């Protein structure tokens, strides 16, 4: 069954409770009158389909554990923050800190993403069809950020074991970035992520960014002891 839930000016806790109940009943959920409001669809369960019509505010899909979320237009700050599984699609622009500290799942942004996309992410994949903003990938522990339309300044600053893949121009690199030519096997792994989204293009000139491991926490400590992930 398909259920329509109106957000409007209602208390977001009530809206989220209605969403939780509908998903628990196995319904497909559409949320209308989203009005860029914050915290919509935070903490959703392990399965279900939900569609937000219009734009959403901060933290949409945060702590997601498996739900498939479709956002018709823009998302505010930190869409999918801390998510461990599931799939989030943003039809337009994703604001700052998209996928911050996410642990798993996929975020697919059809437009551009704001600054610090994938900051401190610990797993999962972020695919941005446009450009990723200033200092994207900052301190990413694990997972992949894949930008098909270039990157802003200070890209991939202070990475741990996360990877930033960029096709297109990079305005500038961050501290401690090592840019490497990916192997065919590595490109094939990325194409596996892009394939279900219909975004594979063999003509792309990839730049893969990883940590240069020259920062103090790599040099002055036993790095393996500090990489606790």
């Amino acid at each position, binding site marked *: 069954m398909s259920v329509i839930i109106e957000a409007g000016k209602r208390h977001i806790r009530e809206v989220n409770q209605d969403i939780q109940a509908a998903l628990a009943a196995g319904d497909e959920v559409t949320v209308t009158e989203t009005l*860029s*409001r914050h915290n919509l669809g935070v903490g959703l369960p392990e399965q279900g389909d939900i569609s937000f019509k219009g734009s959403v*505010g901060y933290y949409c899909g945060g702590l997601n554990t498996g739900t498939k979320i479709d956002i018709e237009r823009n998302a505010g700050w930190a869409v999918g923050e801390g998510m461990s599984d599931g799939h989030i699609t943003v039809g337009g622009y994703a*604001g*700052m800190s998209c996928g911050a500290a996410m642990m798993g799942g996929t975020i697919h942004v059809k437009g551009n993403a704001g*600054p610090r996309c994938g900051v401190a992410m610990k797993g999962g994949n972020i695919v941005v069809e446009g450009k990723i903003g200033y200092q994207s990938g900052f301190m990413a522990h694990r997972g992949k950020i894949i930008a098909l339309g270039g990157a802003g300044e200070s890209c991939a600053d202070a990475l741990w074991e996360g990877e930033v893949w960029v096709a297109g121009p990079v305005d500038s690199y961050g501290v401690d970035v090592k840019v490497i030519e990916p192997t065919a096997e590595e490109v094939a792994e990325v194409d596996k992520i892009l394939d279900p989204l219909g975004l594979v293009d063999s003509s792309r000139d990839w730049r893969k960014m990883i940590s240069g491991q020259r920062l103090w926490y790599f040099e002055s400590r036993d790095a393996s002891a500090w990489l606790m992930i």
Partner: protein
Amino acid sequence: MCGIAGRILNAPGKVGHDLVELMDAQEHRGADSTGFAVYGAPIETGYILRCMGFDKASMDADLSDFRDILMAHGSDFVGEPTIVSDAAKHYCVRMVVKDPGDIARWIGDADDMSHRFEVQSCGRSLEIIKDTGGSVGVADKHGVRDMIGTHGLGHARLATESSVLPNASHPFWARPFPDVAIVHNGQITDYYTWREKLQRQGYRFLTENDSELIAVWVSDQMKQGLTAEQALRKSITSIDGVFTYMLARPEGIGFAKDRFAMKPIVAIEENGELAAATEEQAVRRVFADECDVINYDGPSMMGIWGAGNRSLAA
């Protein structure tokens, strides 16, 4: 974290109403105090003053002494001042005064009584209303929704660098530059350094609020010959901290952001009108239909929007 907002209309209209909506949607960003800067129809001579007295028990003496200072500068009240007072110890006053000539000299004298009575805005069209509490309470107390104008600013304050006091609220007037006001979201880390430099040039600061600096700093740069665009751009590399601020003048509203992209600002521009705010959900209170939002998310960004459908694009 604070929330800021700006609104521009094509023609004089209910800008006060819209600013209250913009700030009501952002009250969760700071309900310590709320303030508004409204640019109404300019008066041809004299100035509109918005003032605050800190103890209503001394209201008569405050007004009498303040009038003496005005008269010493060839000015006086035009009509009776309007008093806004409730259970709080402080009270607010709106008055129109005759032109006191040299504003800097006059406000220099008037500020000698700023420990009990403070001028919070001075301009031919600018009026700053600010008080402790949330947007609806402040708006109801001061009749902000009924204020007519072409543009204005709003601010919801989460106090960090200075106390929760009605006079430490935003917006701040760029003392002594008439008709210039600012709202700010962030922290200025080198404000004491800048403040001391400006004080040595004769500028006076009445609060411990770091934001008070920005309005004066930008206005001083313009006094030295920079355009508004140049002054805003220069502030990004000259002032240290994380910030997004909006500066309003009769000509329009400008904004500037720090080098680290820590503080957001979004805007909707439709048919020459503008709503800008920290959060997208606020601008949607004014433009309820789905329309394109411009996210100024990046570092070191600035822009200028003209009031009354005049282009001031940077």
